[in-house]
């Protein structure tokens, strides 16, 4: 088995003392980021990304940098559960479904049980997803090696149309948000001809809008403004987590293996197609409620209601890295930020990575196994510590977070202008969130805009401007057709519902 050998090699890369230290640092930072309001996986990674610019230049440094950043991601995934269960405040959107049963459990004095269940099932979901990545990604990458510009454009088209077809937001709002992202990506120097576009004489805009600043503003500042509406106070239950509770819960958990398997499948699927962790957690909660014999009691504090969404959220969050690594198309906003990081470090994500950067790819995959183990250890031992962070009053935490966001925006390009842009994106993020304009496709479009456009233009050059090249062979034709079906899915499903509604 080639993969096992490569993975073994990857463990060799990942298991250096520096990298293990970075793993724990990343996970701890990640949990803190996941616990705090206004800091989440995507913008936490975005803020810390500029700090790795120097690190990535040293030999082997890119691997260390991605290990640090991906571990922040795992930590943020774990951290979301803590606030959901103890404070009934989802630290991350994908932990919303965890509050349904997690918070009632905490109120009944079973916080320890709920937390253990959440962490353990997170671990299981992530672990199974990494196993899938290990064996599936070389296959997908090998397949994608034969891709030309038309195929790549079809992949991008499929990704973005999938947002319209699967998101619960109104389709025209998804479309508007996505196209705004593409328009922002187009600002600056045109990559093909070198012409300046949409800069209107401003020197600040010569290099375009930076997606990191957009992410920090949209997710960070926007989120804080939203949190403020709820008032300045947090109220939570106390957390105690001793080994006895952990072991007791572990003895109980194997009973719910079927829920775990179902949730992992939902999660992996939703992670690979750009649905993301949030819908995966809701969907898996719904599925578990439907199939469980205790389904009617969901929402009153059933442990299964914690297992299902947590497993799915982690499986989705992890498998979102599969298309990012193999195709260069991220499955979630955080994966998009990681992808942007790879590009800044000078690595071109996509199938060639598996050929040219074996150390990097397999070091990263090995670190996913190790990082999740590190995560489980950290969260099981440090819950009281993390819960204490949440007791720091909001009027201290909020300005500090905003200052961190400002520093993060500045360090991207050492530009003051970006701090201003962060505030503007923050206001937009607040408005968009409240009016159901989805942020994920917007961010993905900013990151992928240039690539999508150049794939399109190269494809058009190949065909001398004939759009039929997108149907030139079975592969590209299937992808384009699927993309179009997804694009018009809201209409198709409405039509189907109408037909079904009419009797006879």
């Amino acid at each position, binding site marked *: 088995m080639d993969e096992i050998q490569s993975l073994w090699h990857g463990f060799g890369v990942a298991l250096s003392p520096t990298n293990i230290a970075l793993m724990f640092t990343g996970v701890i930072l990640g949990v803190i980021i996941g616990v705090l309001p206004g800091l989440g996986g995507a913008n936490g990674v975005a803020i810390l990304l500029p700090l790795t610019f120097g690190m990535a230049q040293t030999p082997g440094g890119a691997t260390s940098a991605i290990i640090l950043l991906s571990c922040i991601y795992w930590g943020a995934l774990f951290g979301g559960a803590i606030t959901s269960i103890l404070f009934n405040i989802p630290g991350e959107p994908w932990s919303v479904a965890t509050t349904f049963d997690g918070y009632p459990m905490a109120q009944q004095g079973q916080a320890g049980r709920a937390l253990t269940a959440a962490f353990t099932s997170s671990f299981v979901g992530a672990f199974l997803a990494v196993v899938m990545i290990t064996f599936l990604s070389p296959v997908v990458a090998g397949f994608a090696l034969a891709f030309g510009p038309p195929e790549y454009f079809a992949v991008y088209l499929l990704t973005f149309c999938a947002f319209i077809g699967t998101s619960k937001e109104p389709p025209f709002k998804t479309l508007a948000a996505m196209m705004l992202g593409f328009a922002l990506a187009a600002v600056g120097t045109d990559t093909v001809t070198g012409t300046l*576009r949409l800069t209107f004489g401003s020197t600040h805009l010569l290099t375009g809008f930076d997606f990191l600043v957009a992410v920090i503003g949209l997710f960070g500042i926007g989120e804080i403004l939203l949190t*403020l509406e709820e008032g300045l106070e947090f109220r939570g239950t106390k957390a105690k987590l001793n080994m006895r509770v952990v072991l007791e819960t572990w003895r109980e958990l194997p009973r719910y293996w079927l829920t775990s398997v179902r949730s992992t499948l939902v999660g992996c699927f939703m992670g690979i197609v750009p649905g993301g962790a949030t819908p995966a957690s809701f969907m898996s909660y719904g599925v578990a409620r439907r199939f469980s014999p205790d389904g009617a009691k969901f929402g009153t504090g059933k442990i299964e209601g914690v297992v299902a969404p947590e497993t799915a959220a982690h499986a989705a969050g992890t498998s979102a890295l599969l298309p990012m690594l193999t195709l260069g198309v991220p499955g979630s906003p955080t994966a998009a930020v990681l992808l942007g990081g790879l590009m800044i470090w000078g690595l071109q994500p996509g199938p060639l990575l598996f050929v040219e950067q074996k150390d990097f790819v397999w070091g990263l995959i090995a670190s996913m196994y190790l990082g999740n183990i590190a995560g489980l250890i950290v969260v099981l031992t440090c819950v009281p510590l993390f819960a204490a962070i949440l007791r720091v009053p909001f009027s201290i935490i909020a*300005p500090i977070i905003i200052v961190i966001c400002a520093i993060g925006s500045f360090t991207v390009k050492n530009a003051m202008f970006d701090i201003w842009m962060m505030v503007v994106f923050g206001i937009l993020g607040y*408005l968009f969130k409240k009016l159901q304009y989805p942020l994920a496709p917007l961010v993905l479009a900013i990151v992928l805009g240039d690539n999508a456009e150049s794939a399109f233009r190269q494809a058009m050059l190949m065909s001398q401007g004939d759009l039929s090249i997108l149907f030139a062979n079975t592969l590209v034709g299937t992808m384009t057709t699927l993309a179009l079906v997804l694009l018009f899915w809201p209409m198709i499903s409405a039509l189907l519902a109408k037909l079904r509604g009419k009797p006879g």
Partner: protein
Amino acid sequence: MSESPEESGRAAFGQKSAELAVAAFFFAIGAIVIVDSLRLGTGWQEVHGPQPGYFPFYLGLIICVASLVNATRALLVKRADDKAFVEVGQLKLVLTVLVPTAIYAALVTWTGIYAASFLYIALFMRLLGKYPLWKAVAVPAGVIVVFFVVFEQWFKVPLPKGPLENLLGLG
């Protein structure tokens, strides 16, 4: 905040006006993109293929059409069904943070990040958190020292400094 609960619970903006405003924002962006694309050329040129404005032109077009659809959908909502987009009390809280943050962003340009951050956190704690003066000075002082050590010393990322740092010989 001294108003009665009814006052702060009143809607500052309706959902409908917010929808229309954001749709108008999108339309304006779309129009800007279209205008600039037309300047760049939206057709075909030799060697390079599609002209630089080709791709953005259609982006702008889609943004405009989508914003019109969104605006129409908002207009179809009956006045009686209009919900509050944000209540007065909520808006006040949001603005008490947003306005200082904007001032902070402007201040960083003049004073550098450290002095501005100190003032921002201190005033936030003092005015919104009602902390005693010594706490409102100690906490931000500690925070900026930590930032200085982490960014300047560990990661060697210089942050913007102003006249105050130069005076202290740190600039």
